């Protein structure tokens, strides 16, 4: 008796659901993904609206938000699954009710209608490569400290695996590897422990899974008087500033705008019953389903050299955002105006 409710069949033809996974490990979701998607949806369909919820890092909570959207009559949901493995049953349930799900950022299991993403393992690989690049010729003799994301977060494992894929062959050794649990303070203390154990010259680079942890790691390194390349991911404003100042070597910039725009286009198309082939031109297989229409984008590495061409060119930040008091001088030398 799943279709007792008469009005659900008609549904809400003006709403798009947007479910984002968390806001703990990075600021991107509410700073970029959500506003970009909202803006694009408005641009494509002026009387459409986006219903957004954040799961705060809980699969159970995301399921509730998913069901709540369906209870509200929403017909298209953009789902950035907190735990892509968990979603099989939900998506199937939704599909049975005629609700279309777009897997966003992470490939949710179950019969999703489309997929738009960066490849998370690819992010890890890029991080590894950027670190090797930052080390340059010394890479082969370099010992590396790795501070990973929270083991409990499924994505952290992907970043870690990707980074290992590159680093394991190209550097001398991973001399210290711990989870920073996505928490800056924890990451900073782990770095402190690593310095104690390895001494100041015992390592030549630090891999940090994201920018937030990188900040605390850099503080520790500075107070111990160590200067080695450190990299993160997310391209947060603070990270760009550190890159300008030369404290951080790189970050990973996932061009959120194109990602968000594609998702919004797909959602509006699905809502209006249009064909989505033009946007999602390729296909991909998930653990459970085959030939899902997909649009895959490439993440980029941001270093001091290409800040202008990436985050500034894309309008993510203005030079004035980056070059505040502390960083004005560094900006000038880096050629940011």
């Amino acid at each position, binding site marked *: *008796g*799943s279709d*007792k*409710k008469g009005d*659900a069949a008609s549904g809400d033809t003006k709403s798009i659901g947007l479910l984002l996974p968390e*806001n703990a490990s990075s600021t991107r979701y*509410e700073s970029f993904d*959500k506003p970009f998607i909202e803006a694009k949806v408005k641009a494509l369909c002026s009387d459409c609206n*986006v*219903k*957004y*919820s*954040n799961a*705060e*890092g*809980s*699969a*159970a*909570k*995301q*399921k*509730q*938000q998913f*069901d*709540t959207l*369906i*209870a*509200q*009559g929403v017909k298209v949901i953009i789902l950035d699954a907190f*735990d892509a*493995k*968990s*979603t*099989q*049953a*939900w998506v199937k349930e939704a599909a049975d009710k005629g609700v279309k799900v777009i897997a966003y950022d992470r490939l949710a*299991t179950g019969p999703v209608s489309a997929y738009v993403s960066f490849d998370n393992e690819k992010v890890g690989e890029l991080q590894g490569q950027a670190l090797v690049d930052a080390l340059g010729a010394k890479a082969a003799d370099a010992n590396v400290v790795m501070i990973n994301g929270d*083991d*409990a*977060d*499924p994505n952290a*494992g992907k970043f870690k695996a990707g980074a290992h894929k590159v680093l394991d062959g190209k550097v001398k050794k991973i001399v210290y590897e711990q989870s920073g649990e996505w928490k800056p303070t924890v990451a900073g203390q782990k770095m402190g422990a690593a310095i104690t154990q390895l001494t100041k010259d015992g390592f030549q680079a630090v891999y940090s899974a994201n920018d937030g942890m990188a900040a605390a790691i850099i503080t520790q390194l500075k107070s111990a008087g160590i200067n080695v390349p450190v990299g993160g991911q997310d391209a947060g404003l603070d990270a760009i500033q550190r890159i300008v100042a030369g404290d951080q070597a790189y970050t990973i910039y996932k061009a959120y705008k194109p990602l968000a725009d594609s998702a919004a286009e797909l959602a509006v198309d699905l809502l209006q019953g249009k064909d989505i082939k033009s946007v999602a031109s390729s296909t991909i297989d998930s653990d459970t389903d085959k030939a899902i229409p997909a649009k895959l984008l490439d993440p980029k590495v941001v270093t001091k050299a290409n800040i202008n061409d990436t985050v500034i060119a894309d309008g993510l930040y203005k030079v004035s955002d980056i070059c505040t008091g502390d960083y004005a001088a560094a900006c000038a030398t880096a050629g940011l105006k």
Partner: protein
Amino acid sequence: MTTEQTTTPAADAAPAPAVDPRLLVREASLAGYLAEFKRKMKSGDLGSVPVVLGLILIGAIFQGITGDFLNADNLTNITKWIAGPGLIAVGIVFVLLLGEIDLSLGSVAGVSAAIAAVLSVRSGMNEWLAILVAIAAAIAIGALHGFFFAKIGVPAFVVTLAGLLAWSGLQMAVLGDKGTVNVINDGVLANLDTYFLGDGDVAFTWGFAVLGIALFGAGQVLDSRRRNAAGLLARPMSEIALRTGVIAVIGLVAAYMLNQDRGLPLPLVIFLSVVVITDFVLRRTSYGRQIFAVGGGVEAARRAGINVAWVRISVFMISAGMAALGGLFIASQQGSADKLLGSGNVLMNSIAAAVIGGTSLFGGRGKTWSALLGILVIQSIITGLDLVHVNQAVQYMITGSVLLAAVVLDSVSRKTQKSSGRG
């Protein structure tokens, strides 16, 4: 100074009469009942009424804002979702009655879900057996906590904080490198959340409601008869009729709403049954009495010959067992057991539910119904805000304010009455 010699040899003869003349006895009629209700209203002695009012207010406000809150399917969803945290909150009520706290219940829920899922999916064990093993493991964990608390004398806060860490480590270890385990499609675990009794047959809902109402009414009548027979003050029939009427209205409206959607959800039935059974244990057995006694005063309970250590250990076993059950429902709801199940706000929400429902943090006062009321308040706020779709910063601030507002009503009404002491 004037000295009056007004010795008035009062009428009553020794031995003293059973009823004190100063006790304002309620008249055995409906009018008397209403008069007493008004008096209680004025003196702030209202029991659960303020919380229920708060709940109605929350419902009305969210319905006003979103227009979807009172939809049958949204209400059905809420009744399903309260089961997991609600069961944990029932466990919390037991611990709070002792005047203690159990911080480990979230982790225990997580580890139990992980054990059940891994055993049934990865090891191919029979699902029922896997569930039993998971619950048994949780009870053993609870016994361990209880042992360190009651026998070694480590504060429960520290024991269960250590447990919080250790068991979430165990949870990760059980799930292993492969992480998340999906529950078996249409298996026992999956059905915990998704099954509707009789596959949505309306008869089940009506039947369940009518049965509940009838049992309540019959119980009240029987009790009143027995008391009358023993010559004790008993509830008048008119009052029983009124109370049963109120329960009947709530029950039948709920049944009607559920039938508008998918019928009677299994999680609701199980949660309600657990609340009723635990309430019975607390109020009607000597074990329950002992829990209250230990919570009201350890030393007095000990001197009354109660085995305080055993009461404490068993309560921690019960709370861990409840947490395991709750964890299974959460796993069923999200379709999987993962490393984060039970972490985050799960524990706080459950504790808050118990406290909002009226269970004291200082021991000796509360009932398991407060877990139901409290978790309804919390889940209504959460679901209501999910319907509103504002950004998270604002959502946090609103949740905080609504939570406070829901309890302020209760506190203000209680304040008039409060004369002294804690809590």
